[in-house]
């Protein structure tokens, strides 16, 4: 029975016609050969000891060794918060839980100094802080751009369009050199300046997603709310925004992946994120023979995290389609 099903599946999907059959055989041969070579290298020839030795640098960078527990506590806090937000009973408190957890994580990590953050810890914290901070900012700009007030609309449109037309690396660098120029008395660490720059940049993208959500809310909702005598503020925050955010939830999760991937660009202001840590390891002449191992490891980590976020975004989209049908 199973063999018959398998046979008919193969007939349909692999050997439907002559070209398909030839292609299938070619691909199976090529993939098989590649996989054999690759696995042989991974299992026997690769020197994984190097990765194991430098794992600390990869994960937390220059974070003081006796303070490593702080990184674990922060990770536990963030994981708990993600889990709690996904639970059905805590939906209403989701925002509060998330904000408290983020604040607590940052609070726990701050004592050794922002300059000591590094590696994957830096990449993740940057993603968490920037995604969280750019959401309210993005919502404000989205409302501004769809407002009926022409001057407000023009300002918000201008901001969004300018930010979307220049490279992230330029914005981060620009904010990094500009902030000390008009606040010379206070010294702000590179990381904080990077977070500000990245948030300023990402808010424009979030604003465009939210705006598409605002446009997706039917006009009737607004009109019905107005006929009930609600004020403009109540209509926007209680009627339109929740529905708009629900529509763009998958896109916003996708944006988190963009933030995580873009976080590699903070090397421009001298921060050592996960990718930079890997490059620093390769600078050491002793490790120069392990280029392939280091890149494979970094690709694997990035791919696993990225795929997890993409998976979450797709699940949300599928769930939404099911529930709105």
């Amino acid at each position, binding site marked *: 029975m199973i063999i018959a099903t398998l046979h008919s599946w193969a007939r349909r*999907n692999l050997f439907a016609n002559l070209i398909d059959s030839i292609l*299938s055989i070619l691909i199976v041969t090529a993939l098989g050969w590649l996989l054999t070579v690759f696995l042989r290298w991974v299992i026997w020839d690769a020197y994984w000891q190097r990765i194991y030795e430098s794992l600390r640098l990869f994960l937390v960078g220059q974070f003081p060794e006796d303070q490593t527990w702080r990184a674990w506590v922060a990770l536990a806090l963030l994981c708990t918060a993600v889990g709690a937000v996904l639970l059905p009973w805590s939906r209403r408190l989701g925002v509060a839980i998330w904000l408290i957890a983020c604040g607590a994580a940052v609070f726990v990590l701050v004592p050794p100094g922002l300059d000591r953050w590094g590696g994957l810890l830096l990449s993740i914290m940057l993603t968490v802080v920037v995604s969280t901070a750019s959401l309210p900012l993005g919502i404000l700009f989205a409302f501004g751009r769809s407002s009926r007030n022409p*001057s407000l609309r023009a300002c918000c449109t201008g901001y969004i369009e300018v930010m979307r*037309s220049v490279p992230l*690396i*330029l914005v981060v660098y620009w904010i990094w050199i500009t902030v000390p120029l008009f606040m010379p008395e206070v010294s702000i660490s590179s990381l904080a300046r990077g977070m500000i720059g990245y948030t300023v940049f990402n808010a424009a993208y979030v604003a465009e997603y939210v705006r598409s959500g605002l446009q997706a809310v039917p006009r009737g909702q607004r009109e019905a709310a107005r006929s009930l005598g609600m004020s403009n503020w109540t209509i926007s925050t209680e009627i339109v925004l929740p529905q708009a955010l629900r529509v763009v939830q998958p896109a916003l999760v996708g944006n988190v992946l963009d933030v995580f991937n873009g976080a*590699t*660009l903070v090397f421009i202001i001298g921060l050592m994120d996960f990718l930079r840590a890997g490059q620093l390891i390769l600078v050491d002449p002793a490790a120069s023979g392990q280029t392939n191992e280091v890149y494979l490891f970094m690709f694997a980590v990035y*791919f696993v995290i990225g795929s997890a976020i*993409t998976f979450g975004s797709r699940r949300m989209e599928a769930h939404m389609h099911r529930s709105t049908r």
Partner: protein
Amino acid sequence: MIEAKTKLWRSSLATPSVKRYVARVRYKLTHGAVVAAVIGLLILIALAIHQNLTSRGIDFSFAYLSAPSRFGISEGLAPVWTGWAPIFESVDATSSNLGMLEAGLFNTLKVALLAITFSTLVGVVLGVLRLSTNWLVRNLAFAIGEFIRNTPILIQLMFWYFAVLLQLPSSGSATKVSKWLVVEQSGVFLPLPHLSDSAGPASGFFVAVAIAFLAAACLRRFPARWRIALLGVGLCAIGASYALGFGINLDWPVLGRFGATGGLHFTPEMSAILITIIVNSAGYISEIVRGGIEGLAKGQWEAAAALGLSRGDTIRDIVLPQVFRIIIPSLTNRYISLTKDTAIGIAIGFPELFNVSGTVANQSGRDFETVIVVMTIYLLLSWLISALANFVNRRIALERA
């Protein structure tokens, strides 16, 4: 009677008109407040920066742009205006800062244009493969796209540059893959087509005539007979130009003791950033193309099948022409992102606009002004691309019934 009516009419409108007046005043007030707030904020920031700059003894001026740059970059040409057409010349330490920025812009544009062309080709092929009837082909294309989109572009660049191109055999012991392609540590070499020496203006004229006629022969608005005649004239023009000594020779890369020379030479930095951006954007474009194909009405496939068209013919003649009309806005966004992505060239030392601007800023100490100039250039580039795309979109978009 009429008087009473007028009175009634006036009194009934009195309150709404006052309301409307109040609304108008409030509207103008909020307007004024927003404009004043934004202008005030900008002035405050500008003042703070100005004060800070003057306290450090720096003035705000763009005069440094015409000063000599006093540094060199590895590649890049800047236009020099002598007469009505620009001549592209390589830049050196005596070139002005502006010339350096122009050379950087030249490199950015070079990479962006090549990447737009090739990533579209590769992306469309990948996107069509994702709908193949073969399970392996379909999922292989999916896996490639997924891997590209789920990893940062910077690590892809690092990988191509440090783990592939710099690990190639060193110059002198080059691996000559074929006569057409030489790959070694000093870069990638391809044959370069160039005009033969015997080509004169007369033969050039015939080539232009031939191109014009052949292009006209491709237009469908002419009847078939005309098009055959046009084709004939075009071919005759080609023959005439060939008789007059027109020809295209290939300049082959030659392997020497110290590496390959001649032909079209891509430096390792240029090759790495080009490969990265082409592959990366192809991943995104394949997703756009797949979405466009799946968004097409099923009836199109069924109608084509009912007419007896094969799957390949359906995709080529029915599906893709319609899909291109749908996906132009998404493609435009991709092209803009791709152009902005060239800025990561600074990570491997490719002298594109952002990298060069960083050196200019360091050398002249004018960070702030340089960033403003560079930001403006990127803005104009993005607007240029979207204006071009809007133009194309208007020309070929389907008329909405």
